Structure formats: structure tokens, C-alpha cells
């Protein structure tokens, strides 16, 4: 069948209108031929023989009548061994290789293989001739860094297939034949270690979806203790600019207890990706002893890169995440920022002259956001193992106001909300997640009753603080004043965490649980303090010691020494324990 072709009949920004001859489908990829360059584009609307395409490149120089070639393929990514530690643009072009070829600047019209065709992999077959397999089943494995990468029957294979041939153990490139399978109609197909998958379609080659229960540990105290995230869950981080969204995602990408991290740098600063890009190859993952880069894939379509490719980039990222999930791994996808993706949709929708919704976002914004987050999840694979994709997306609301379409649509679908506060960021209270406004539907490492108790102190402390602004400290009872001091203390030494301190930056569950025990002891204690001044001095001393304590290596001599100082300080002033707190402790034991 001859490939469909067409001719350009209009150019409006990054949208090109084309008159086509032949059949085309929505999301089909086509190339616009400009001089000697081929510009990758995707069909986003079809009306009779006129189609609109979003061009993944700068459209300068395109003219009426320029020829267009269609591919009969949807926008897809390559899946196979060798994705890890790569840095791709939104269309899975490997950026370092592109740099080798083109130098400092991006050059349009150059599309390189996502997977290296020369690199060889040590293939160990697991399937045998005669085996009956279906999409997602293993043909064999190759080692990829510390992971056992499963070579699978492509996900688009329909029904079951019989293995006719499988190669013996050995060293192969991704595109060499490793198996031949026959389908129920008797048609044979050769399989390699790689295949393509259309990015906008979720991979469903698993047995069933499960409810996310286990915690995804981020080593950020306020998250793990108060606002936990589950493996296979979803969460969002809305916040005004400068509130700390990106730093929070960066520390999470380093410290999260997951197997693989996919970073989607979507429409934000290129410089921020560079930090990750340069530092990850040097940083060791304490769990595996290997560099962080070996567990990371970076999809980088930053703000000055073509907008249409930005729209595609989050799908590229989630498809790669789903692919590794199929190997029984826990994958974390961090997207910064989903608002830029939504804006890319808005730009296109505007050019298509669709009827605009709120703030000119397209009417389908909500459903698109919902189906993106739906691609997260915990699944039981056909082989009985579990794998998960967790999605954490930042949101950049216009004017920092959460009452805007993208934040609202996102809040409807996610399992946890980590809302960053301008006030807290201005006061350098990092991470600036608002402890009272934020919420999570997941279960964390510490008994919820105890965290609720602590949260309640924060809540009361906040109320008392508001009241103090009206009646002054002199109008505040000593009892209330102590509650206020407790809440400030909890905020300062537990909720706030120094992302740049080597020790404090990441606190594992063991230490969190231990420290929270001490904190709880303080929160629940009835303290023998005779005046507001004494209370203030006591807490300021305690705080000082606790901050030093937070900076001390777990169970080091310094740690133990400071722990003793702190416990002694509490003991000295403690005059009984709040009965509610007491009963919570008792029920926990």
C-alpha cells in the first residue's frame, strides 16, 4: 500500500494544515519536507481531506505546497534494554548523541535511534520452542545494570502465540532476532529485544490492577510521616514559583526507595535538568552501591524546546515507566511541571480554534489529566509478581492560586496533595508543604492516630498564633502558649528539613520512627514551665539541640550524646503526660 502524502496549505505557529491524499488516522506521525529537512509532526485533527498537524519542531521556513509524508504509525517510543541512564527529549531523541552530532544547539529534523543498535546484551532465553505465550510474557532476560531486564513478547501481540524458534544464550544487539513466534492464524513473526509502543496508549499487559497499599518512602519527614505516598499511587505538588517544587522533586528523585526513577522535565528550566544530569552519574545509591544514573531515565523537553514535543514528553515518560513496571519493578515518574504540558494543550487548542473552557484551557483538560494519572498503579503481572508506577506531578498555578483549572482537575484524581505555601517558602520553611492544607489518602510509616495528634497540635498552635496577633502574648494563657511553642517546635525540627545538609537531607523510616517517638514524647508531655519566658527559653534550647541532633549521623556518638541531652531536658521539665497521648501510646504497644 502506498504511503499517504499531502501538501501544506497553512501555517499558524507550530500548527500546520495539510491537504491529504489517502487515509490517515488521528495521532499518526507525518513528516513535512522543508528544503532538505524532514520535520516530525502529529495529526491532531482530521476534517475531510484537511488535517491539522502539530509540528514537533520550529516551523520557520515552511511554505504553502511543501510536501508531507505520512507514516501510518502513531507517535511511539522504542522499548528495550538500554533505556536506563539515558537523556531523551520529548520524542525520545537521545540528547547527548544529538550534541555529539550537532554541537551546542538543537538542530531540527534530526531523529536518532533511542536505543543504541551497536551495543550488545547478554541474552538468556527463558522461553522454549513450543511455549504458548501472550503479550508481556518473557522470552528471556538480559542484565541491565543491577536489573534483570525482561525481554517480552510485544504488548501489541493479539491473543496467544507459539514459540517456533528461540536463540541460544549469547550476546545480541537490540535489533537482532531472538525469537520467532506463530499466531493462531499461523502467521510467523520474528521478534527482537526491542519493539515500539504508541505513547498515548496505556500498557495493559498485566493480570490485574491492585489497590496501592505499601508506602513509597521519600525520606522527606513531612511526607512520609504526615502526607505519605503509596507505591502505585499518585500525588501532586502545586505551588507558586520559587516555593520549592523542583527542589522537592530533585531530592525525591535521589532518595526515594524505588527501583527506577523517570524524570520528566516538562517545559521548565533546562538548567535544572543539568544538575541532575551532571550529579547523578557521581552520586551513589546507598541501597545498591551503584550510581543514581543507573536507575534513572531523564525525559527533557524544557521550556524553550518545541511546545508540541513538550505535550508528547509526559506520555513518552509514562510509557517508559509502564515498560519497566512490566518487569516487576517499582517505578517512580516525576513530572515537572504538568502545567506546562496543559499549557501546550492550550496553545494547540487555541490554534485549532476550539471552544475554550476556563482560562482558555480546552474543555477536555480534566479528562486528559485524569487519564494521565490513571496510568499510575500497582499491578499484578501475569507471572504473579507485582510492579508499580507511582506518579508525582508538580503543578504551577497561575498567580499561585490553586483555584485554577489544572490544579483543580489534578486534585480530583490524585491520592495525595502536597500543597506548597508561599508564606512558608518566604520564611525559608523548607520543604514548604503546607502541613494543614495538604492531605493524603495513603497510609504512612507512623500510626495515624499519633500523627493526627501531632497535627492537632499544629492546628491549635496555628489558632493560638492567630489569636495572639489580636490579644498579644499577654492575653494568652500559659497553657495555650506552651501548645503554641510545641507546634512551632514540631514545625521547626520535624516538618522542616534541610535538603542541602548531608545527613538531614534524607531520613529513612527507621530514623523517622525513632525521632517521631521523641517528638511525640515532647508533644504529649505536661511541662512544668512557670512563665512564657521560661517556656520560650526552654523550647529555644530544645530546638537548638534538636537541630544539631538532626545533623548528627544516625547512632553516631554525637547522635547519642545529643539524644541524652534532649531526653534529660524533657525529663527535667516533664510533669506527667497528656492522657490522650498516653492512651495512643498504650494502644500502639
Amino acid at each position, binding site marked *: 500500500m502506498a504511503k499517504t502524502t499531502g501538501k501544506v496549505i*497553512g501555517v499558524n505557529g507550530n500548527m500546520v494544515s495539510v491537504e491529504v491524499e489517502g487515509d490517515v488516522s488521528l495521532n499518526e506521525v507525518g513528516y513535512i519536507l522543508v528544503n532538505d529537512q524532514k520535520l516530525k509532526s502529529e495529526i491532531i485533527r482530521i476534517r475531510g481531506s484537511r488535517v491539522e498537524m502539530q509540528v514537533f519542531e520550529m516551523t520557520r521556513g515552511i511554505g504553502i505546497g511543501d510536501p508531507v509524508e505520512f507514516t501510518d504509525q502513531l507517535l511511539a517510543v522504542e522499548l528495550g534494554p538500554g533505556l536506563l541512564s539515558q537523556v531523551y527529549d520529548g520524542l525520545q531523541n537521545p540528547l547527548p548523541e544529538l550534541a555529539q552530532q*550537532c554541537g551546542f544547539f538543537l538542530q531540527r529534523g534530526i531523529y536518532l535511534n533511542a536505543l543504541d543498535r551497536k551495543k550488545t546484551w547478554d541474552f538468556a532465553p527463558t522461553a522454549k520452542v513450543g511455549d504458548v505465550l501472550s503479550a508481556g510474557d518473557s522470552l528471556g532476560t538480559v542484565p541491565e545494570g543491577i536489573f534483570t531486564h525482561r525481554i517480552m513478547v510485544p504488548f501489541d501481540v493479539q491473543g496467544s502465540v507459539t514459540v517456533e524458534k528461540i536463540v541460544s544464550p549469547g550476546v545480541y544487539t537490540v535489533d537482532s532476532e531472538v525469537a520467532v513466534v506463530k499466531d493462531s492464524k499461523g502467521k510467523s513473526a520474528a521478534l527482537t529485544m526491542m519493539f515500539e509502543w504508541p505513547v498515548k496508549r496505556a500498557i495493559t499487559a498485566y493480570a490485574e490492577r491492585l489497590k496501592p497499599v505499601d508506602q513509597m518512602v521519600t525520606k522527606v519527614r513531612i511526607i512520609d510521616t504526615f502526607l505519605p505516598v503509596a507505591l502505585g499511587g499518585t500525588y501532586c505538588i502545586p505551588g507558586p514559583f520559587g516555593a520549592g517544587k523542583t527542589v522537592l522533586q530533585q531530592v525525591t528523585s535521589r532518595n526515594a526507595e524505588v527501583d527506577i526513577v523517570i524524570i520528566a522535565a516538562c517545559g521548565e528550566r533546562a538548567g535544572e535538568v543539568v544538575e541532575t544530569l551532571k550529579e547523578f552519574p557521581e552520586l551513589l545509591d546507598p541501597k545498591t552501591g551503584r550510581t543514581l544514573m543507573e536507575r534513572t531515565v531523564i525525559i527533557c523537553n524544557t521550556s524553550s524546546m518545541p511546545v508540541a514535543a513538550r505535550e508528547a514528553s509526559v506520555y513518552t515518560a509514562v510509557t517508559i515507566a509502564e515498560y519497566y513496571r512490566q518487569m516487576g519493578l517499582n517505578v517512580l515518574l516525576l513530572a515537572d511541571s504538568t502545567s506546562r504540558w496543559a499549557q501546550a494543550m492550550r496553545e494547540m487548542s487555541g490554534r485549532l480554534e476550539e471552544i475554550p473552557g476556563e482560562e482558555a484551557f480546552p474543555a477536555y483538560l480534566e479528562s486528559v489529566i485524569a487519564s494521565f494519572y490513571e496510568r499510575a498503579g500497582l499491578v499484578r503481572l501475569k507471572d504473579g509478581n507485582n510492579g508499580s508506577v507511582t506518579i508525582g506531578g508538580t503543578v504551577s498555578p497561575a498567580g499561585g492560586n490553586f483555584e485554577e483549572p489544572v490544579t483543580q482537575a489534578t486534585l480530583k484524581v490524585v491520592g495525595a496533595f502536597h500543597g506548597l505555601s508561599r508564606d512558608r517558602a518566604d520564611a525559608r520553611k523548607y520543604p514548604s508543604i503546607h502541613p494543614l492544607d495538604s492531605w493524603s489518602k495513603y497510609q504512612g510509616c507512623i500510626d495515624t492516630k499519633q500523627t493526627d495528634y501531632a497535627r492537632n497540635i499544629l492546628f491549635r498552635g496555628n489558632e493560638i498564633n492567630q489569636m495572639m496577633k489580636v490579644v498579644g502574648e499577654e492575653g494568652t494563657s500559659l497553657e495555650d502558649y506552651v501548645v503554641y511553642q510545641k507546634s512551632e517546635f514540631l514545625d521547626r525540627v520535624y516538618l522542616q528539613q534541610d535538603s542541602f545538609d548531608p545527613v538531614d537531607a534524607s531520613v529513612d523510616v527507621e530514623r523517622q520512627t525513632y525521632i517521631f517517638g521523641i517528638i511525640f514524647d515532647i508533644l504529649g508531655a505536661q511541662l512544668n514551665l512557670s512563665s512564657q519566658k521560661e517556656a520560650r527559653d526552654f523550647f*529555644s534550647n530544645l530546638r537548638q539541640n534538636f537541630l544539631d541532633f538532626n545533623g548528627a549521623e544516625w547512632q553516631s556518638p554525637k547522635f547519642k550524646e545529643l539524644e541524652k541531652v534532649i531526653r534529660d531536658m524533657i525529663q527535667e521539665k516533664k510533669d506527667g503526660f497528656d492522657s490522650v497521648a498516653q492512651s495512643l501510646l498504650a494502644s500502639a504497644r
Partner: protein
Amino acid sequence: MQKVYNRIESIAGNVITVSATGVKYDDLALVTARHGESLAQVIRLNGEKVSLQVFTGARGISTGDEVRFLGHSMQISFTENLLGRIFDGSGRPRDNGPTLEENLVEIGGPSVNPAMRIIPRNMIRTGIPMIDVFNTLVESQKLPIFSVSGEPYNQLLARIAMQAEVDLIILGGIGLKYDDYLFFKETLEEGGALSRTIFFVHTASDPIVEALLVPDISLAVAEKFALQGKRVLVLLTDMTNFADAMKEIAITMEQVPSNRGYPGDLYSQLASRYEKAVDFEGTGSITILGVTTMPGDDVTHPIPDNTGYITEGQYYLRNGRIEPFGSLSRLKQMVNKDTRKDHRSIMDAMITLYAAFKESMEKKSMGFRMTEWDDKLLKYGSLFETKMMDLSVNIPLEQALDLGWEILAECFEPQETGLRSDLTQEFWPKVKAEV
């Protein structure tokens, strides 16, 4: 190929439409009208209909005027001869010097491959403690000054430009008041910096479309010099005028506005300019300092809002001072770890205490009794404002850090500062200095 057309079919705002063939998207055309010539740029193709935005505005253009397509997009001459020269928004001389036509380069070129970027590493010293200590400026940073009109933002810009150790300054004036233009010229002249400066100045009385070109022209030239090893500082003032010019065109083109009339691609448009800031490994760099005046002193207005999401922080200029709250240099942590080991901690501690001071001020203004602690904070706040925040303070970083410790010691006991004990032990002044 230079095709000439004599039939302008529609004129709306600054956009004209002609029927033409063989025209490419983004191409330039020369429109010859009774009052003179103007460049125009193709902004939409629809079949044979070509829409162009006319740089000097469509006023005075008649439907019978001549449109000649040039067959290329906007270019600027790149040569050493640019140094010391003054041009307008379209790159025409404003200084009676010769028109430059050699070595034309394209403007608005592709962006840098993120994989080729490097981690910023050089602090730019300004002698202003609110910058050097609290929000360090870094080579290759893009940073705007957020300000209301009436604040001395151009003075601040010029002062930083004069103190910064860079090889080349490019001043992109967008809707610049004529007086301000003269001010920059004089300041740079007096500082002996004119010969390493290039001006692309669009003044408030120039045609609005030309405002759109200034950032691209300035940055295209900056890029070429940076690739030749120069450390270039680009000053863009005022980017709010740039965004407003974009809004005007968008409305003419009947685009659906997203927020208060601004086009939905405002973010991407601003980003493609600011992201030109870069440090090229092994050669030069581009640092961008902009001015964004905030309509109605509202930081949530779409222009400062979108800018803040793009730039690597902002200096918030208010009441003639760089405000510690709201101001941010996102790159400071790249360099402030290597200055002095107390730098980060004292920066954080002083800001936290300053926030507490603000609260005490609030309480005081409501007539509450001041505690001993409040009194300490009040003293601290006033010392901080006069000794550190005042824009007239001009001292090197190290001296500013020492001053910080002195101010703290003047007001507090070490454990009240929230600073870690190992630091207070090392840096706390042994004898109280008279600050």
C-alpha cells in the same frame, strides 16, 4: 527571489494581509508606504493569504502599497563594529553611524541542547549585600528585577552592570523612556564601559512591533559573542513592554486570550528568550538581567507570574530596597557553598530572624506589649535594614558576612539565632563590635 505584490487585502492593527505564493513562514518583507519603508514578518500562512506584522506599524499604509518579500527571516549583522554602537529595535543605527550589513546572522535561532549545558559555577560579585549574601548572582543566570514603576530599577541595573566583571554589555531597551536611555548611556560612558557596550533601544515613542524584536536581536548578538569566548551581560528593560506588545498582536490576530488578555503562549514566548542565558563549556556565557515592572504592584499579574516561573529567581525592588522576602536567586546554592562556610547558615538565620522582626513590628503596631524577645528583634530589624538592606551599602561579600555576625551579636545570644553551635563557636564575635 524577491517577489513584489501591490495589493494589500486587509489592514488590522499592525497586521496586513496579502495574497502571495512561494512565501515561507517567518519570512521578512519590505513594505513601502508613502511615509517610508518598513520591515514586516510573516506570522500566518493560510492558502494564498499571507499575514504579516509590520514593524513600524500599519498606520499610514494604503491597500495599494508595495510588499516585497525578501526570502529570509530576520537577520542582524554580527561584527566587532557593533561595539559602542546604538541601534533601534529593527537593528537600524540610532547614532548616525553607518548601517552594518556584513556577516548577517539569523535571530531567534534554536535553543541550546540541555545536554551541552554545564552547572553554573561563577559568582558575579556586585558589592550589594542583599545580592551577594542573600541572593547571589551567578554567571549565566537569568534574573529579572520585579518592581513597580517609580522605583530606581534602571539605576540598579546600571550599577550591577558597572560592577559586574563581564566582557560585554548589551542593553536591550524595550519601551524605554528617552531619559532612561540617556541615563544608561551616560552611566556607561562615565564608567568607561561604552566601548564594550551595544545598545538595541526601542523607546516608548517607537512603533510597538519593534519592541518584539529587541530581545531576539540582543540575544542573537550575545550568543555569537559568547561563542567567541566573551562573557556577555544582557540587560532587558522593560520586559513588561515586550509582553504587552505581544498581547496587542495576539488580540489583532483574534487569538483566544488565556489570562487578562494575554496570549496562551506567553510563557513559551518569554521562556524562549530567557532560556538563551547559558554558560558555554570552554567558551563564553550569557547572563540576562531584566526588568519586569508589575502592573498594579501585583506579582500575580500574568507578566511577573509567568516570568517568575521561567527565570532563576527575581530581585524584588520595593521602597528603594531589595526585599529579602520575594527575592530569590535560585542559583545561589551553586556558588555559596564555596564562598565561606558560614555563608549559607548566616543567610538563612538572618532571614528567619528578619521574618520574626516583621511579626513583632506587626504586634507593636497593634499596640501590644513588647516582650524582651520582641525588643531584641526590633533592634535587630532596624540594624539589618540600615546596615545591610540599604542600596547605598557597597561592600565585598566577606565584609558583609562579618557584618552579619556583628549585627547578630549585637542583638542576640548565640542559641537564640537558630544557628548551629559549631558555627556560632567559630564565628560569633568574641568582643561585641560597635555596629
